[in-house]
């Protein structure tokens, strides 16, 4: 059996990370619907940063 365990682990970690970002962003929007715009912007930034790990692991790992 062959494979690249580091990509799998990176994907696991970043999936958890993106999930946490999404959960907290939804929660924050629920608490303060007026701030939906800035929260969405920040959520996208942090989701993208968490997601970037996979691509680094995939192509450079």
């Amino acid at each position: 059996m062959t494979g690249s365990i580091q990509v799998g682990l990176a994907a696991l970690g970043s999936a958890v990370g993106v999930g946490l970002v999404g959960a907290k962003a939804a929660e924050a929007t629920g608490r303060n619907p007026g701030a939906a715009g800035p929260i969405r912007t920040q959520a996208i930034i942090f989701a993208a940063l968490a997601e970037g790990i996979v691509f680094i692991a995939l192509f450079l790992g």
Partner: protein
Amino acid sequence: MNFRRFLLAITLFVALPFPALAGAEEATSDKSAPAGESHIDDHKKHHGLPKPAPILYHGIGGNPETGKVGPLAITNSMVVMLVVAACIILVAQLATRKAALIPSGLQNFVEWLVESLYGFFEGVLGAHMVKKTFWFFATIFIFILFSNWFGLIPGLGTIGWAEQGHHNEHVTNPLLRGVNADLNMTLAMAAIFMVLWLFWCIREIGPGGFVGHIFDVKGHGSGFFGIFLVAVFICVGVIEVVSICVRPVALTFRLYGNVFAGENMLESVMMMGNQLVPYIGGAIAVLPFYLLEILVGLVQALVFALLTSVFTALMCEHHEEEHSH
């Protein structure tokens, strides 16, 4: 004035992968043997997208047989890129040809797009920086968005020709391919952003301010604790430099990986669906993923434009704080 800059930026993007491809000549020729093998393997196992974009025209002095790439080589991604750029320029020209004070029709739509983008980036960059950098971020957003969506048009990858002796059912040399499914394109955009970023930072806060911003000592201690703090923040500065160096790599691979993986995923799902229910299964199975890919195309364009603008804002915000004091 802004419109001219917009045209200039589009032309710049279109011209970029040419030198990038020529620069990648050694890399492609080095890896030509294993790349060729994996290409064949790909075709045997599943009809996925080959990782490097197939080169249609090897450029001046290039040789298709040895894999040598000369200047002005053209890959199939670049064909789509030229088409998308031409479409955007055409729409912009048509919209502004008869500019009226009260816009209607196409002009109205384009003004709505530009104005909402301006408001969006103003929120990120601030009123001062957005005037100077809006042309770049808006162009990059519009260009990535429409090239992603253009790449999703059904049947785009099936236009092309098959090699001699190959099955007719499968196109071995596709003419068209999603723009950002080519690493050269995303790398070129990330590289031009980093150059512009450096230029904007130096112009806004000066070379001293630039270094000072990276190796910034926050908080003032005295005696041993002060020296300790300076050492800590110099280490933080080194980490900051590494993170800045990773930015273009992450930007490149994020966009490329998302678009490339999306195209492969659509194809895999299609094959699986076709195995379960012949002829119509694939089309039904692929539909939710197709809608997902439309969303991904929008989100990735947003992410690229947003991340680049946030990087710029992070470095240049210092200047504005000083002014407001």
